[in-house]
């Protein structure tokens, strides 16, 4: 179950980052609710996942899903650049961040 929690946590993070776009487009209660519930869900399920998985592993995978998912969601829904160099550099950051969390 913990892996399912972890995937849900990652998706929550993607919704949270989409909430950032929503808040910047329109400062409404809907946008803020979207943003806050996305990140809250994310933390809640990350905590659940950490109950069973090693903390470093859970944290690393959560970061990977959340950051990659947010970049992809931005390209699909918000017209963010799909330039290959942008994707490469975001990939480098994700690989490094996941690696750092795995080894600590």
């Amino acid at each position, binding site marked *: 179950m913990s892996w399912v929690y972890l995937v849900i946590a990652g998706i929550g993070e993607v919704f949270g980052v989409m909430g950032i776009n929503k808040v910047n487009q329109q400062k409404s209660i809907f946008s803020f609710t979207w943003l806050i519930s996305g990140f809250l869900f994310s933390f809640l399920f990350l905590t659940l996942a950490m109950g069973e998985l090693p903390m470093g592993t859970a944290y690393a995978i959560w970061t990977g899903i959340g950051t990659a998912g947010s970049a992809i969601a*931005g390209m699909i829904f918000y017209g963010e*650049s799909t330039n290959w*160099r942008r994707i490469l*550099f975001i990939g480098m*950051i994700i690989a*490094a*961040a996941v690696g*750092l969390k795995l080894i600590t």
Partner: protein
Amino acid sequence: MNKSWNILFLAGLFEIGWVVGLKHANSVTTWILTAIAIYLSMHLLIVASQKLPAGTAYAVFAGIGATGTVVLEIVLFGEPFRLSKILLILLLLGGVIGLKLVTDEQAGEQES
């Protein structure tokens, strides 16, 4: 554009603050400071995303958080210093610098 990058960097610094806080806070004061850091980091991340693509901003934000936490754990809490950590931090820095260059270049194209 540069201002947004500075704001984003600041958001990352506050993120380091609350990640360390969640792990080490042990009094009402430190918990309040942790909560303030969570609020400020999110607020500044949103402000930076007004000018920068949210996907870019979030990747850099998460990267600064990961690096800063590892560095602080080494400096303040006596975690072991390893070559692999330094190499990963260099990879991450390369990604952030590259991303900044690509983003500024594209923004310039749109303005002209």
